[in-house]
């Protein structure tokens, strides 16, 4: 009695947690991690790629809502209905997934009354990619909550569910159907990226830059967070623009696959076409899927029709869905979807009035504005504008990296103290 299957025509699907649980013991990072792993359960076996994004255009919008939340499935407080998701289709809510914010969402909890968020998310994402309910007791797609399903890093879909998703999307290349039938030991997925905190057991190194005095090599918005790169290190700010740690993280320990001898990067940006992350250094570039480098990189930047000599900055401008590359006083406009440079470039910069003609890097932020960085200063350009907002430049260290007012010599003194 299953309906005609609906499925996504595209294979790259973006997702975003739009609202988080209000009174839950689970923090936003844990919620995002659980969503990542619940989606990965499906993309591990089917040719689907899920990418977390910051913008409101995500294919799968995830919300924690209460009671009537303006769809046809109002929630009913603790117990009863706990979540739902919309099947793929042309409607604007296709793929959207809603969790009842009044449930006691848990993760790795012994609380028998809690609702295991990972287990429910795997089920709901099954709907979001086109699977309906089944009566098979072992299936994750049977409609009743049956408790936790175990470790998100090791969870493997029951056979019935694997077959049903293969019927919709085929088998992922890396998955051998025979191997699946032979039920081998599940492969352990990579661990979630460790937050760049100060729990490292390695002693402090002499080449560690200080965030308050750094001229950053590159700045990028990746998955809605800001990354400030300097030398072999980077600082990370979460979506609320709060530094994850005052201490920088080591680039090579997080971005797996960058050559160890690489002492800095020139520019970084998240590609809008497939949400992969591109690093530039000199005449070469690397493409990362999440924080792992793709096979076959580095490649020459001539792939972008860029001349030898590298780039200073790379910036994806949502206003026209184009990527801009900057080098000295020149800039190029590139279409990431067609992978072609737009004709008529390079042009003499800058495109935005009031922004310096040479840049360290640029990024868009979740407030819709674009930010341009050079030296220890930054310029803000409001969404859709072609001119820097009045009152800029401002101090990058003060406004982004939790430093004091940059009094003369203070940054240097603080750096020396550090």
């Amino acid at each position, binding site marked *: *009695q299953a*309906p005609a299957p609906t499925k996504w025509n595209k294979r790259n699907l973006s997702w975003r947690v739009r609202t988080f649980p209000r009174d839950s013991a689970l923090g936003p990072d844990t919620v995002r991690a659980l969503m990542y792993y619940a989606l990965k359960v499906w993309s591990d076996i089917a040719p689907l790629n899920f990418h977390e994004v910051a913008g409101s255009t995500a294919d799968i919008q995830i919300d924690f809502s209460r009671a009537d939340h303006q769809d046809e499935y109002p929630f009913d407080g603790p117990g009863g209905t*706990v979540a739902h998701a919309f099947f793929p289709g042309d409607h604007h809510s296709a793929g959207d997934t809603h969790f009842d914010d009044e449930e006691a969402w848990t993760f790795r909890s012994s609380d028998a009354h809690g*609702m295991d968020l990972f287990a429910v998310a795997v089920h709901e994402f099954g709907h979001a990619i086109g699977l*309906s*309910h089944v*009566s098979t007791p072992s299936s994750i797609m049977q409609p*009743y909550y049956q408790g936790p399903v175990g470790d998100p890093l090791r969870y493997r879909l029951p056979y019935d569910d694997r077959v049903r998703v293969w019927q919709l999307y085929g088998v992922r290349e890396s998955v051998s159907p025979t191997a699946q039938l032979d039920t081998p030991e599940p492969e352990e997925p990579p661990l979630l990226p460790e937050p760049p905190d100060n729990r490292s057991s390695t002693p402090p190194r002499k080449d560690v830059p200080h965030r308050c005095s750094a001229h950053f090599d590159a700045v990028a918005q990746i998955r809605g967070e800001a990354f400030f790169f300097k030398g072999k290190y980077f600082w990370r700010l979460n979506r609320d623009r709060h530094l994850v740690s005052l201490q920088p993280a080591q680039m090579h320990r997080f971005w797996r696959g960058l050559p160890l001898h690489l002492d800095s990067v020139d520019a970084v940006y998240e590609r809008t076409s497939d949400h992969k992350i591109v690093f530039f250094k000199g005449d070469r570039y690397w493409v990362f899927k999440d924080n792992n480098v793709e096979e076959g990189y580095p490649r020459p930047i001539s792939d972008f029709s860029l001349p030898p000599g590298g780039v200073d900055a790379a910036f994806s401008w949502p206003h026209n869905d184009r990527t801009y590359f900057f080098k000295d006083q020149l800039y190029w406009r590139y279409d990431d979807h067609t992978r072609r440079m737009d004709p008529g470039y390079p042009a003499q910069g800058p495109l935005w009035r009031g922004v310096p003609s040479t840049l360290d890097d640029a990024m868009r932020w979740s407030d819709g504005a674009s930010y341009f960085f050079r030296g220890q200063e930054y310029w803000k350009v409001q969404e859709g504008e072609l001119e820097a907002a009045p009152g800029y430049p401002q101090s990058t260290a003060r406004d982004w990296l939790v430093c004091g007012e940059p009094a003369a010599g203070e940054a240097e003194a603080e750096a020396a103290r550090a």
Partner: protein
Amino acid sequence: CAAPAPRAEDLSLGVEWLSRFGYLPPADPATGRLQTQEELSKAIATMQQFGGLKATGILDEATLALMKTPRCSLPDLPPLSWARRKR
């Protein structure tokens, strides 16, 4: 002994639940929620079967307990299946 008849509130909960999750057709504004006993029994049996219970068609304790189990909001049977079943 015959099984005890379900209490009115259980029956009401059961009918509402069966409609919500696709086992009974949506309420008809002209006739209210009137269902024939046979229709209701059939719907309960289908729900029991889907939920892994013995398909008796009787709204017993186990069936009511399953109806109170936390679950996904989406229906188990799509609306289309109603037209098909009616035909």
